[in-house]
């Protein structure tokens, strides 16, 4: 292992890459060209890049508005346009973005010429229908990826039921290829697809390894803050050489930190899992509520589902790219769905793997996919595991439902309990 690795380069390079992605989108907008709008679960970046289509992730462009503390301006504009305060903040921010002709705090977002969305989140579907009405022409393509039918009842390659689903997914991919050919005027190039899938393979392998490395004591990255940077790059650069190289270098850095015992805090007192979607309106401050107590997020379901299931590290078979793409997307998107709907089993497994001291459940107003089951998952975890947990509600976009003082009270009480528990167990003196 090299000994001259700069600690922190992953974050720096990630920020640079992310900005270059945005700059590229601004260039596309300036040329008045359209882009493919996709979502983090089932983006099919590998396929779209093989047609040289620029790709916009509206979830990412929306969350950036909150991180940059201007989301409220966009939300207000969408609500003035008739959208309810009770629907997804990402959608509303994007509606206002479209009304503002792509004007975004990080640049300019091109218009959609294709909207590709899976059924992993129903809001994706409603969102695409909004674009269908706002933009003409735009081709919207529903990409059905059947999920798990019953907790613990997943089917696997080799079974007829799995093959039924895989065949459906493959059939739709082939239909999408025809759509892309029509939109771009380019013939489908299977070798180009092999190339992007090869890059995706390298990235997935690294992503899986990255998550595993955080089981290290002390943890080598913060799953909430650093993890969000990695997610941005992981989604925007999936299927690119730059993305593959970035994650290989990131893993190299984290291996180095693990070996050298370099953590994210001066003293890692409490190892936590984060379950839900981050509170972007006060993103850094939210984390400080925990880090001030020596708490760090070593794992999160967000890194699983918002990576589109890349945590599985699935490796495409490049000898049969389309069939394998269908299988990989089916397994990954299904896994992402499980990470959102079956948090109980996901977190239960994390407790031992990451030697957790506590679990933070963070349901939000905007996302019912992730949030609806969290209270019951927590109840089940408390009943069956006994690990301390915290349940706090806010939002990923809407600062009107983020009460920092209330959050702090709850977080402080949680840590007082954790400290007391450790004291009683003789772990803290």
């Amino acid at each position: 292992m090299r000994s001259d690795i700069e600690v922190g380069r992953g974050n720096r390079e990630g920020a640079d890459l992310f900005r270059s992605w945005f700059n590229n989108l601004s260039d596309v907008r300036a040329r008045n060209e359209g882009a493919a709008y996709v979502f983090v679960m089932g983006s099919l970046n590998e396929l779209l890049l093989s047609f040289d289509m620029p790709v916009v992730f509206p979830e990412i462009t929306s969350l950036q508005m909150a991180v940059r503390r201007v989301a409220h301006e966009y939300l207000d504009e969408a609500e003035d346009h008739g959208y309810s305060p009770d629907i997804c903040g990402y959608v509303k921010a994007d509606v206002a973005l479209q009304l503002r002709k792509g004007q975004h705090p990080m640049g300019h977002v091109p218009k959609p010429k294709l909207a590709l969305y899976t059924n992993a989140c129903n809001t994706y579907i409603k969102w695409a229908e909004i674009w269908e009405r706002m933009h003409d022409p735009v081709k919207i393509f529903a990409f059905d990826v059947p999920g798990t039918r019953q907790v613990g009842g997943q089917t696997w390659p080799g079974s007829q039921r799995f093959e039924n689903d895989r065949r459906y997914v493959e059939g739709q991919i082939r239909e999408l290829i025809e759509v892309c050919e029509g939109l771009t005027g380019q013939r489908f190039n299977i070798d180009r697809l092999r190339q992007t899938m090869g890059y995706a393979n390298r990235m997935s392998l690294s992503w899986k390894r990255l998550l595993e490395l955080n089981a290290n004591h002390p943890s080598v990255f913060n799953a909430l803050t650093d993890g969000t940077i990695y997610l941005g790059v992981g989604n925007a650069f999936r299927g690119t050489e730059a993305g593959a190289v970035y994650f290989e270098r990131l893993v190299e850095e984290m291996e180095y930190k693990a070996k050298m015992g370099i953590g994210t805090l001066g003293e890692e007192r409490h190892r936590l899992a984060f379950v839900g979607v981050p509170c972007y309106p006060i993103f850094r401050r939210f984390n400080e509520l925990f880090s001030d107590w020596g708490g760090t997020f070593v794992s999160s379901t967000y890194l699983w589902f918002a990576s589109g299931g890349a945590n599985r590290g699935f490796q495409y078979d490049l000898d049969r790219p389309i069939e394998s793409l269908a299988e990989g997307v089916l397994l990954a998107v299904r896994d992402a769905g499980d990470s959102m709907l079956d948090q109980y089993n996901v977190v239960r497994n994390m407790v031992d793997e990451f030697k957790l001291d506590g679990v933070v459940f963070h349901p939000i107003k905007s996302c019912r996919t992730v949030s609806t089951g969290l209270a019951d998952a927590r109840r089940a975890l408390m009943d069956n595991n006994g690990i301390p947990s915290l349940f706090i509600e806010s939002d990923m976009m809407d600062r009107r439902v983020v009460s920092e003082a209330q959050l702090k009270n709850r977080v402080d009480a949680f840590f007082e309990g954790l400290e007391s528990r450790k004291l009683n167990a003789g772990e803290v003196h």
Partner: protein
Amino acid sequence: MSYGIRTFDEWEGQDLDEVLRLCRDLVEDVDFPTVKRWREAGGKVVGHFQVYFPQELAHAAGALPLKIRGAPVEPTHSDSRFGSYLCSIIKTSLELALSKRVELELFVTHPICDAARNLAPIWGRNFEYPCQILYLPQHANSKHAPSYLRDEYDRLAEVIEQATGGTITPDALRHSIGLYNRSRALMRALYDMKRTTPWKVAAEDAYCLVSLSGVLPVEEHIALMEYVMPQLQARTAREEDRVRVIFEGGFCEQPPLDLIRSLGRSCYVVDDDLLIGQRWVLSDIDTSGDPLAALAHAYLEQSSYSPVQHDDRKLKEAMLEQRFDGAGAKAVVLAAAKMCEPGLEEQVAYTQALDKRGIPFFVSEFEENMSSFSQLELQVETFVENLLFG
């Protein structure tokens, strides 16, 4: 299968008004007495959440398909299992099961919305019986959707067989489809009546007759409808000077019966999407070939619309306009259940389309548990007066 009993026979031999009163009482009875009778006789029950479910599959296995659509009950047991910012039906549906008002052998939900898809794992953590998601296709326009859905129904049939102990033969399924064809035909006739002679059937009565199709064994629903429909048709009531309206927004969570009654006092509700899943299939399903393929075909090609199914051929506002025109309506009541994301999102498109055509509309939110309607009644009356005299 009847298990040798009738679950709802109180109406037999009664006059029309009494039958309708009994129907209203049954719809509002949150203890589901007919389902209890079915179970006491040894019957199995398959609970299916809104919106559409192929009830024929459960029926062919000898089980009772029971539409789970919430209820106006306090979520005393289920509240602690959910966070904030959720619609009521999610909570009260689980409440019905936790409080043992309904007991099931199998629960099936659908990814109709982000909250509903969560019900399978939540339900599964709270009950021993299987709790499943039925993945109806959202890519209705894919040429692969029919074969996928046929396979998905085949899978579901297997799950139902395992959960209920019944056997679904192709002949039994064809027979069930035939029965549901009849039940749906009777409901279509009811809606024809609403559109053509709405003064013959009150909005809440029509609603109750449809609602019972999700509660009663289909044979009993057919018998009830065949008894009621000729009597409704024979009514000599005269048309009144009321505004003809469409009610849109009842595809999942249901407004309280009092709200429908209240609306019916001011307007003729000539069409609606209330319990649209029960009326999803618009024409008879083929009973001659592969019954699973026929069910799949019907879902995709012989169906209505709702905000929770995407189909390139069914732009929602165009479908609403079609419903509006088809019913000869003069205005639209656009409602959405509180916290219902698909319903609230659709309202924007609906209002813009209606505005464009100059169609009067009234926007409102409701909740199944709401008990005070005075403000809503005032708003509706003002809206109606504006239409009549404005």
